[in-house]
C-alpha cells in the first residue's frame, strides 16, 4: 500500500453509463473518511453524444488529499474508463501525464466489429506510447457473472474496484450504497451491494498495488456539498423565504434542492413564466417585506436587467445569484466562464450602482448568501452574487457551518411608521434609509421607477435628480468604508501581484505557491467584492512592480496592440486599470473548463517572462 498526500482520480464513460454517480459517491466516501476533497463534473458537449465518442466523455474528477483542497489540480494519477475513446477528449485538455494509470474496460478487444477491436488495440498502444500505465480490466465480463443488465450495474462494480484500490472503509461504502438504493427496494439494493463486493474482491485479487490517502487532521464536523447546494443551504440559513426562478443551466439545480427543502423552513419557490417575471415576483415579495432572491445565469441576467434597474432606482432589497456560464448568448450552457462581471455592473441602463460579490470556493457559496441578504437590507437595494459552473457542480468538504438567529432575516415590522418620516429618509452621510412595509400605518408611499424625491413623489427637477442619484451612489461608497481590506496571499510587497476573483482562487494560490518555492517574488490577491472594491486595493497594488489578473473571460492577445493599435482587456483587468490608472496586465482564457494550477502558472510566466527583482 502506497501512502500518498493526495491523488487525482477520474472516472469517465459514455453519457448515461453512470460514471458521474460513481464519482459523486466515491467523492463523498473519501470525504467521510476525512479527506479534503474537490470534485469537478466532466460534462459531454451534447446531452446524448454517440457511444464511444471522442467528444463525449462524461464523468467526474475527484481530488482527494490529506488537507483541504480548493481546486481540481493538474493531471490525474488514476483514470477509470469505460471505453478507450472517451479518454481522448480528456487527453486533449491535458488531463493526464506520463505515469497516469488507466484502468480500462477490456471488453472492446473482443468486440464483434473488427473496427472497434482495432480502435481499441491502437488506442491501448498509443496510451502506452504516451507513457500511461494501462490496466485492462474485464469489467463487463465480471458483472455479467452477477447481473444480466450490465448497463445498470457496471458503475457500482467500478466503485467497488476503486474502494479496494484506495483501501476505503467498507462500512462507510455500504452506508452510502444503502442511502442511494434503499428507496428502490431491497432487491435493487442487494444486487448493487453484490456488484460492489464483486468489484472490490476482483480488485483485491488482481490489483496488488493499492493506495491510501490519510485524512485531513483538521478537527470539527464537516459537510460535503456542491456549490449550488451550498447556495441553497445558505439561502435557508439567511432566512430567505421566497425564491422566484426560471429554469436555466447551470443555476437550476440550486432550486431543485430548494424545491425539496424550502417548504420545510416555511419558504416558497415560484417557478415563474420567464426570467423577467421571476425577478418582478421577487421584487414584489420584497416590497411587501419578505426576503426574496432569484437564481439565474447569463441569458437570464440579460432579461432581468430592467428590473435590476428598478431595484436600484426604487431601492428594493433583493439578492440575484448568477451562476455564470460561457457566453455571449446561449454560449456554453454547462461550462464555466467569468464573463458576466461587466454585465452585472453595467447591464442596467442609467446609473445603477449595486453590490457585486463572488464566492471563491464552495464553502463561501454558503456564507456569502447570508452576507448578501444582510447587505441587501442594509443598503436597501440589489446585491448580486456571481458563482459559476465550476462551483455549481463541484463538491467540496468544509467545516459544518453554525446556524443561529443572527444569520436570519428579522420579522418584518408592522408597527406604525413614524409620523412625517419620508419613505426615503436618506442619511446624508451614508445614503441609507429605512423602508416602510405595507401594513405599516402611516408609511404608505407609492414606489416608482421614475425619478422621485425623498417622499417617493415623481420629480423631474434637476436638483432632485442629481441629489437622489448621488444618494444611491453614496450607499456604495459608505458601505466600502466599513469593509476590511482584502488579505494578500504571500508577501506584502514584491515583483509580481496576481489578482483573481471567483472560483479560480484555489488554482491561482497553488500556482503562486509553486512559483514562490522556485524563488519567484510574487503574491496573489483574490477579490470577493467586485462592486464596490474592498478598500486598500490601490495600496496593495502599488506595492508591486508588475500586476496582472487571471480570469476566465476573454482578452485580446497582447499582439493586438501592435497589429491593430488596440487591445481589449479582460473584465476585472479593465476595472482595475480604471481604478488604479496602472498598466495592469492580464492572462485570461475562455476554455470552458476550470483553470488548473499549471495553466495559471504558464499564464503568469507567459505574461511576465522575465523574472524581476523583489
Amino acid at each position: 500500500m502506497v501512502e500518498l498526500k493526495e491523488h487525482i482520480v477520474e472516472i469517465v464513460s459514455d453519457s448515461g453509463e453512470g460514471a458521474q454517480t460513481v464519482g459523486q459517491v466515491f467523492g463523498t466516501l473519501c470525504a467521510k473518511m476525512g479527506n479534503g476533497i474537490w470534485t469537478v463534473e466532466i460534462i459531454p458537449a451534447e446531452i446524448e453524444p454517440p457511444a464511444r465518442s471522442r467528444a463525449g466523455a462524461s464523468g467526474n474528477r475527484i481530488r482527494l488529499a490529506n488537507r483541504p483542497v480548493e481546486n481540481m489540480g493538474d493531471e490525474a494519477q488514476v483514470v477509470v474508463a469505460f471505453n478507450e475513446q472517451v479518454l481522448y477528449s480528456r487527453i486533449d485538455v491535458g488531463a493526464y501525464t506520463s505515469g497516469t494509470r488507466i484502468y480500462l474496460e477490456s471488453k472492446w478487444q473482443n468486440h464483434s466489429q473488427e473496427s472497434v477491436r482495432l480502435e481499441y488495440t491502437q488506442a491501448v498502444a498509443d496510451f502506452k506510447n504516451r507513457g500511461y500505465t494501462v490496466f485492462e480490466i474485464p469489467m463487463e465480463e465480471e458483472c455479467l457473472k452477477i447481473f444480466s443488465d450490465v448497463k445498470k450495474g457496471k458503475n457500482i462494480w467500478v466503485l467497488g474496484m476503486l474502494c479496494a484500490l484506495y483501501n476505503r472503509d467498507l462500512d462507510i461504502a455500504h452506508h452510502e450504497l444503502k442511502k442511494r438504493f434503499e428507496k428502490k427496494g431491497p432487491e435493487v439494493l442487494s444486487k448493487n451491494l453484490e456488484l460492489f463486493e464483486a468489484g472490490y474482491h476482483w480488485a483485491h485479487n488482481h490489483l496488488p498495488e493499492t493506495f491510501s490517502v490519510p485524512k485531513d487532521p483538521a478537527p470539527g464536523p464537516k459537510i460535503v456539498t456542491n456549490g449550488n447546494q451550498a447556495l441553497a443551504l445558505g439561502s435557508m440559513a439567511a432566512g430567505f423565504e421566497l425564491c422566484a426562478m426560471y429554469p436555466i443551466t447551470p443555476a437550476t439545480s440550486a432550486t431543485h434542492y430548494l424545491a425539496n427543502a424550502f417548504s420545510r423552513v416555511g419558504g416558497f419557490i415560484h417557478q415563474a413564466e420567464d426570467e423577467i417575471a421571476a425577478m418582478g415576483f421577487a421584487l414584489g415579495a420584497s416590497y411587501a417585506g419578505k426576503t426574496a432572491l432569484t437564481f439565474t445565469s447569463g441569458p437570464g441576467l440579460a432579461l432581468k436587467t430592467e428590473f435590476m434597474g428598478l431595484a436600484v432606482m426604487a431601492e428594493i432589497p433583493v439578492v440575484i445569484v448568477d451562476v455564470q456560464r460561457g457566453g455571449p448568448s446561449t454560449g456554453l450552457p454547462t461550462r464555466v466562464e467569468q464573463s458576466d462581471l461587466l454585465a452585472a455592473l453595467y447591464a442596467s441602463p442609467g446609473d445603477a450602482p449595486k453590490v457585486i460579490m463572488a464566492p471563491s470556493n464552495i464553502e463561501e457559496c454558503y456564507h456569502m448568501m447570508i452576507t448578501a441578504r444582510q447587505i441587501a437590507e442594509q443598503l436597501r437595494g440589489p446585491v448580486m452574487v456571481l458563482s459559476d459552473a465550476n462551483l455549481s457542480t463541484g463538491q467540496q468538504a468544509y467545516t459544518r457551518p453554525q446556524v443561529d438567529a443572527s444569520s436570519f432575516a428579522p420579522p418584518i415590522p408592522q408597527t406604525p411608521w413614524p409620523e412625517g418620516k419620508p419613505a426615503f429618509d436618506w442619511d446624508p452621510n451614508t445614503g441609507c434609509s429605512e423602508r416602510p412595509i405595507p401594513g405599516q400605518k402611516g408609511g404608505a408611499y407609492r414606489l416608482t421607477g421614475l425619478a422621485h424625491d425623498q417622499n417617493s413623489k415623481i420629480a423631474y427637477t434637476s436638483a432632485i435628480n442629481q441629489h437622489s442619484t448621488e444618494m444611491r451612489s453614496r450607499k456604495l461608497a459608505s458601505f466600502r468604508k466599513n469593509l476590511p481590506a482584502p488579505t494578500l496571499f504571500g508577501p506584502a510587497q514584491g515583483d509580481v501581484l496576481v489578482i483573481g476573483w471567483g472560483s479560480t482562487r484555489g488554482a491561482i494560490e497553488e500556482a503562486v505557491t509553486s512559483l514562490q518555492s522556485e524563488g519567484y517574488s510574487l503574491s496573489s490577491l483574490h477579490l470577493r467584492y467586485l462592486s464596490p472594491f474592498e478598500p486598500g486595493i490601490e495600496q496593495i497594488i502599488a506595492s508591486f512592480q508588475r500586476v496582472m489578473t487571471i480570469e476566465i473571460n476573454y482578452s485580446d492577445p497582447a499582439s493586438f496592440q501592435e497589429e491593430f493599435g488596440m487591445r481589449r482587456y479582460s473584465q476585472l483587468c479593465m476595472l482595475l486599470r480604471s481604478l488604479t490608472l496602472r498598466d495592469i496586465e492580464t492572462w485570461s482564457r475562455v476554455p470552458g473548463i476550470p483553470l488548473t494550477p499549471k495553466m495559471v502558472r504558464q499564464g503568469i510566466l507567459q505574461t511576465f517572462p522575465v523574472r524581476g527583482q523583489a
Partner: protein
Amino acid sequence: MSSMNSTPSTPATPYTLADYKGLKPRWCSGCGDHAVLSSVLKVCQTEQLPPEQTVVVSGIGCSSRFPHYMSTYGFHGLHGRAFPIACGVRSRRPDLHIFVATGDGDCLSIGASHWLHAIRYNMKMTVILFDNNIYGLTKKQTSPTSAKGLASNTHPEGNLIDPLDPLAVTLGITNVSFVAQTVDWLPGHLTDTLLAAHRHPGFSFVRVLQRCPHFTADVFEGCRRDPTLLTLLVHPQGIPADERTLEKLSNQVTHNPANLAEARALTQDTTHYPVGLLYHNPNADRYDLSSAQGANLSTHERIDVVQKEIDRFLI
C-alpha cells in the same frame, strides 16, 4: 406579525373617501381613468379597507399613474410587468388588498405573457384593464385592441389587422375565475363591477371600455349613441345593475356566469359588447393559498429545520 392574518376591524371612525385620495390626478380632462379612480375610491370606502393594508400595483402608461392618485401603498412598476410584481406582493401577504391598474398596451402587448400566466395562477387581486384602444402616454401608437383601419402614428394608413379580444383570450386560459366588462360612462355599473371583483376570492379581471379624449375620442361613440350595441348581462349570480344602467341598456340577455361555454360564445359576437359578469368561478384553484404557506413559521422552528438540512450533508 399578529395582525397578519386577522380581518381588520372597522375603525371607530369609518374611513372616508378622503382617506384614500392621493395626489390630484393629472390625466387629461375627459379621460376615462378619472371615472375608474372614483369607483376604486368608492370600493375602498364601501369595504372599509385599511389604507395601510391596500396596495395598488401598476405598469407603465397613462392609467398606470393610478397608484400616485391613491394614498394607499402603491407600486408603480415597469411597462408590462404589473402582474409579476402584484403576484410577488400577494405571494406571502394574504392580509393585503391588491388592485392592479394596467392599460391595453401594458397588459395585452408588452405584458401579454405575464397576463396569461397571472390568470392561470389565480392569486387574489382585482385587475382593471383600462382599454382605450390606443397608446396615450407615448402619443397615439396602435395598441392590440385598436380597430382595424384606425390611423395612428405607427400606422398612418390604418391598422392592418383586427384587434385582439382580451375577454376571449382571458376566458380561454385554464383556471380563469372572474371576467367582467364595464364602461367608463356608466359609473354605477363600473363601481358595482369593481366591488364584485374585489369580493371575488381570486384573480378578477375587469375590462373597462373607455375613450382617450385626445387620440380615440370617438372610439365608443357608436355605443354611446346607440346603447343597444351593448348587451347587458343579467342574472341573479351576476353583477346587480343599478337603475340607470338598466334603463340605458335596454338590450339585456340572461347569462349565467357559471357557464364558461356561453361566456366564450358571447365574445364571438363582434357587433355587440357584453357588459356585466361573463364568468365567475369562486372555487378555482388559487396559487396564493400555496405560496403563503409557512409564512408564519417562527425563526426558532426555521433554524431547527435548517440545522437538520445541513446535517444531511455531514460526513
